[in-house]
């Protein structure tokens, strides 16, 4: 893969606070135009990694490039070409919507500022409310305004840090629609989230826990790559069954999905042996299923220490 096609190419990124390693020896390659999902629980190091990529934090170790610029030495060049949407709303609550957008446009020296801001307001559907203070917007609107603000200077790379946290499902769907529109235009997008259903929207998924990358694959290959096998069971007495199965030989993890239990394991035969005694129970209905992302992530989470580097 040549440098032009790889937008982010970092290796061995490490960030420590005191003796706590927040991000540990992190490699990341993001091809141009991809929607790259960063998944992982809270405190797994997603935000820290994103901040290192755009020059907001200096890594303790590791090196690499972002948009062809060195992440440590040339962060000011990176900043000009990257749109970064912070996890917490970080526009100015005491400025109006228009003032916020104009300020951001000036900071990036956007040449046709007025048209750009008008355009953004139009796209947002906020033209009529342009003179309203940004602080008075609801959560979903704040997210959309933030996205519009970090798109004003037509960045080549978008870094979105949990852009949909605390946003209602409809707004989330709309948000993702606009992400895909941007990706189709050739913008590379790195987006962190802890919603599983959003992971499906990404072209690539990296799963992070405890500062380490557990898996990194195309989203459609991810499940196969892990090699997980899952059985679904419905019926009566599931809580009891769940307790009995948890920790049994061959059973990796047991997770409840609504009225069903999903029992997963890496070894197909051992898993079958473990659950076979319960097949006769007339109150339970068993079926084999193709594991979804959710099972895979739960599996990754529980086995993160021993299964992967």
């Amino acid at each position, binding site marked *: 893969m040549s440098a032009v096609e790889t937008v982010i190419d970092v290796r061995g990124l490490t960030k420590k606070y005191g003796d706590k390693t927040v991000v540990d020896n992190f490699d990341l390659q993001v091809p141009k135009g991809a929607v790259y999902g960063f998944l992982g629980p809270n405190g797994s190091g997603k935000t820290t990694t994103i901040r290192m990529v*755009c020059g*907001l934090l200096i890594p303790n170790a590791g090196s690499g490039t972002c948009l062809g610029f060195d992440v440590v030495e040339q962060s000011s060049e990176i900043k000009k070409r990257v749109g970064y949407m912070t996890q917490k709303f970080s526009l100015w609550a005491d400025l109006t919507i228009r003032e916020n957008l104009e300020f951001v446009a000036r900071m990036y020296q956007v040449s046709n500022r007025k048209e750009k801001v008008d355009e953004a307001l139009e796209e947002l559907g906020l033209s009529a409310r342009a003179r309203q203070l940004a602080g008075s917007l609801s959560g979903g609107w704040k997210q959309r305004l933030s996205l519009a603000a970090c798109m004003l200077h037509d960045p080549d790379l978008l870094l979105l840090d949990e852009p949909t946290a605390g946003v209602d499902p409809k707004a989330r769907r709309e948000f993702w629609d606009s992400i895909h529109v941007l990706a189709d235009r050739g913008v590379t997008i790195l987006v962190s989230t802890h919603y599983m259903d959003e992971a499906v929207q990404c072209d690539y998924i990296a799963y992070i826990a405890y500062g380490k990358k557990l898996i990194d694959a195309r989203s459609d290959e991810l499940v196969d790559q892990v090699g997980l096998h899952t059985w679904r069971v419905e019926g009566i007495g599931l809580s009891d069954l769940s307790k009995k199965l948890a920790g049994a030989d061959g059973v990796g993890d047991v997770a409840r999905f609504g009225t069903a239990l999903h029992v997963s394991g890496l070894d197909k035969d051992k898993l079958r042996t473990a659950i076979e005694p319960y097949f006769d129970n007339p109150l339970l209905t068993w079926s084999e299923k193709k594991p979804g992302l959710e099972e895979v992530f739960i599996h990754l989470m529980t086995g993160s220490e021993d299964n992967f580097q």
Partner: protein
Amino acid sequence: MRLFSFARVKAVLLKEFVQMRRDRTTFAMMVGVPIMQLILFGFAINSDPRHLPTALIDRDHSSFSRSIVYAAENSTFMDIIKRPATDQEAERLIREGEVSFIFIIPENFGRDLVRGDKPQVLLVADATDPSASSGAVNSMKQIVEAGLVRDLSGSLSHLAQAPPPVDVVLHKRYNPAGITQYNIIPGLLGIIIAMTMTMITAVAITREKERGTMENLLAMPIKPLEMMVGKVSPYVIIGYVQTCVVLVASQFVFDIPMAGSYLVLFAAVTLYIVVNLLIGFFFSSIAETQMQALQMTFFMLLPQILLSGFLFPFLGMPRWAQYIGEALPATHFMRLMRGIMLKGADSGDLFASFWPLGVIMVAVGTIAMIRYKTTLD
């Protein structure tokens, strides 16, 4: 449920103690401010100053003139630190604030004294701060007479009888009526600017940190210097507005003379405003919250009020306090304002007060720029 639960009081109490311990700056302030006040009020401040620097012109060189000089020094009101050759040089010294008094003993003083011609000695006092000079001014007659008592014995003893053999002429310069406002109002501008300018910048930047907008700013391609100039400039205008308010009031309400040039005055004000804005910028690079920024501003303001010569005579303070005072921008600004407004000093006379402000500006600006972080580390 009981009406008053000590368990709940204890819960709140414990929580307060834990939070107090975590908030280091507040804790440091609560301990630091009383200690600082004790030291400043207890040791540094002296409303009855002694050992004020004096320039002596003794044109007589007789045993009588030496006796008077000796008596004057012995009174502890004044220390002879300069012996200028000419009146012009002496005038320059008092205008620049290097001396508080000029003491002149004319030619043939001894001869005229012996003749019983009742010769004059002249004490010129810098009365910009009436409280600083009043001690020496009020007791000069007695000092001179007491100094001559031993010399006027034997055949000259008739001269020691009343009326006094010497006429002490007092010239109170710059503020002859001894009006306190003449001293306070020009200095007050220094305190107003120090307080508001430092606070406003320190808070303006820590507010970005507290609200989380700093992360957004840092992610943008802006250089530290651009940030500093952009952040600080708007407040320079506010500083000018404050200056105009104080000047208008001093002219029309307090009738304070304006002996010098407005151009020099505005040059001094501009420099001083920038210095204080940079101090605020520096504070904001240390403080994490607006509260901490405010506390730092207050901590800085206290010595600026007490050690700058604003309320208490600078030259009356012990040497160590004067050294601290010299490092404070307000001290130099007080001298500039009083020099310009009351003494009519020109920029050449005031160079001694201009350059320290310049040095402070460069030093604080440099440190602030170094401390200003372009990352979230």
